[in-house]
């Protein structure tokens, strides 16, 4: 067993003239929570579909759980697609049993686990109801259970939090973290950056089918976090953009985030600001993943 659960090398996927994935490579270390980030249309879902063997790459190789994609036992993987769907007319308990069975569980075992999960997520009283009678959030939880039922070693979640209210999102987040603590690997796709910062050990930012940056969360932040300050000022602080020490200014509404040149003393910027307007807050800050994301994605290629 190698240390990487997913090893992707130079995969390419074209739809006609459009290249959705363009020579993508990354590895997911065992036991990590790996965030696959990128704007809409970056090629995240296509990459994940290729990992699930739903589509085949035109070029490149994918190894998962130590074996070639063609020989991967899909039962060891759990997959939550981006767009959710269950059999609407089927009863909740039956749907879960069915999904458990096609993932290799015995009928009895699938029923037992479905029951336990429904109980844990407070859906036990809905087990005999058809899926279509459930609210959207409940259906999402049911689908989430269906991906976990067979206790996969690798869990691939495409936008697991979209459409969930904060309460349900935190329930799902707890489940993911618990799963992580058991030593399983989780890959998830998202463009909700606050989730990334809370959950991920590793990130991989994709844009236009290519890897823009990847590594541990700390390493990525460190690479970017050379020099930054967060300022809260009274009045218009846009003049700060013109200072020679400042590389970029991002106006976050209540707060301004400034990226400074390497080696620049942040306090000189504070002085410059205070010379013109009152400053109510000053903080040395590393950039958020959100900022990095915006900056790298909006760069001209």
């Amino acid at each position, binding site marked *: 067993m190698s240390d990487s659960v997913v090893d992707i090398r130079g995969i390419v996927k074209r739809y006609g003239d459009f290249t959705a994935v363009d020579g993508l490579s990354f590895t997911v270390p065992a036991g990590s929570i790996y965030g696959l980030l990128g704007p809409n249309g970056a090629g995240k879902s296509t990459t994940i579909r290729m990992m699930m063997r739903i589509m085949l790459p035109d070029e490149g190789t994918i190894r998962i759980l130590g074996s070639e994609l063609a020989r991967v036992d899909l039962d060891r993987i759990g997959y939550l697609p981006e767009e959710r769907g269950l059999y609407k007319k089927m009863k909740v308990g039956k749907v879960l049993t*069915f999904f458990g069975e096609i993932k290799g569980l015995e009928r009895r075992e699938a029923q037992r686990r479905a029951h336990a999960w429904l109980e844990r997520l407070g859906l036990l009283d809905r087990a005999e109801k058809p899926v279509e009678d459930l609210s959207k959030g409940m259906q999402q939880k049911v689908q989430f259970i269906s991906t976990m039922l067979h206790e996969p070693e690798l869990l691939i979640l495409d936008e697991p939090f979209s459409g969930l209210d904060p309460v349900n999102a935190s329930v799902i987040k707890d489940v993911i973290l618990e799963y992580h603590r058991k030593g399983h690997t989780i890959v998830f796709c998202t463009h909700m950056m606050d989730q990334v910062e809370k959950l991920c050990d590793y990130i991989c930012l994709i844009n236009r089918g290519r890897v823009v940056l990847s590594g541990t969360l700390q390493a990525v932040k460190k690479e970017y976090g050379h020099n930054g300050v967060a300022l809260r000022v009274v009045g218009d602080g846009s003049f700060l953009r013109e200072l020679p020490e400042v590389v970029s200014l991002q106006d976050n509404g209540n707060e301004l985030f400034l990226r400074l040149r390497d080696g620049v003393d942040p306090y000189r910027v504070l002085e410059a600001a205070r010379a013109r307007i009152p400053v109510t807050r000053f903080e040395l800050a590393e950039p958020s993943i959100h900022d990095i994301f915006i900056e790298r994605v909006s760069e001209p290629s």
Partner: protein
Amino acid sequence: MKVGHIIRREYTENVRRKSFIISTLLVPILMLVFFVVPVLFALLEPDKSYCVVVLDQTGKLGDGVAAALSDTLTDGGRKYLVTAAPSAGDAYAPARAARVEELRGGKLDIVIALPASIFADGKASYITREERNMNVLERFEDVITDVVIQNRLAAEGLEYERVKTLTAGIDLDMQQVTAQGGLEEKSFLSDYGIVFVFTMILYSSLLSWGMTISKSIIEEKGSRVIEVLLSAVSTRDLMWGKLIGVGLAGLTQLGAWAVMGLAFAGYAASGMVGALASFQIAPAVFVYLIAFFVLGFMLFSSLFMTVGSVCSTDQDAQQLQGLITLPMIIPILCLMLLLQNPNSPLAVVLSLIPLFAPMIMLARIILLQPPLWQILLSMALILVSVFLSISFAARIFRVGILMYGKRPSLREMIRWYKLAG
């Protein structure tokens, strides 16, 4: 085996559906209502008597007609209480008007008006209030015709009984050799009914189960369940699971109908109700029905499956579904042709073309046992095309199932077919 779970889900979800249970029970009832009830009604005479006046301008017919109408009711009483009323010359018209008034007033049920011209032009009137009983009308027609002929013959000096004997018609009973070497009585009317029922049942089963498959795939694409399924099973397992699961559901329904049909055929053959005696259906016909359903289902459903896999919405699919339905309708349209001569070269050719064969061959088997080699050849040809259509469906299915948006053109589908090979 993962395909087993797909089969089980498809089967149980289809069989448990309300529409399945309703149609399984309702179709035999409708068949009974449409085919058997009219036969019974036509044969069941209302047991009542009629007050009849025969108004006779000729003066020669009234008594003869009255004497001939000696029908009795079940209690032994006379069915027609006939009064002959001769009314020669000018008295005829006012007498007729008076009788019609009586009829209107309810004193009479039927007025028969026989004008003097009847010998020349053969025209007379049957006047009634509301009674629209064809059997009664026909009975009067027969009797009056008979009496008029007697009179005409007498006028020529010929003896009625002798002429009747000499001109007696010939009655051909139709018999058919069976495979066992015996002979079997046949009648056109019941054959037509049985052929119609069987081909319609086969047609509607093939169509509705084909549409079920097509719809379920579109639904799975729409709800994106398909991605979850494909992350667990291969497209091959999914396709076969659907074909077998839905096919078994169809077979269950058809089997239930066959059992009910056999029970009915047994009841009809027992002769307890004479009117049903003509509805004789050989048990082998039910076996053929099921065999052609299985073959036809594999053929058409793999095509319906292809349609489902390349379309994203039901509206999208309608046009292509229509294209498949067309070859299914042609045999129904050919049914009349087939009834006239089930062994014509055209009928033989049609029953060997795989797309038409299930319905046409079944109809031919019911009408007139075709040579065994023709039956086997037609089945073999269907089987060959089943393999072709399933391998075609499998390739298109693999590509189409994940395609959303615009429906591909036929040319694109052919490209997919080549790509998937």
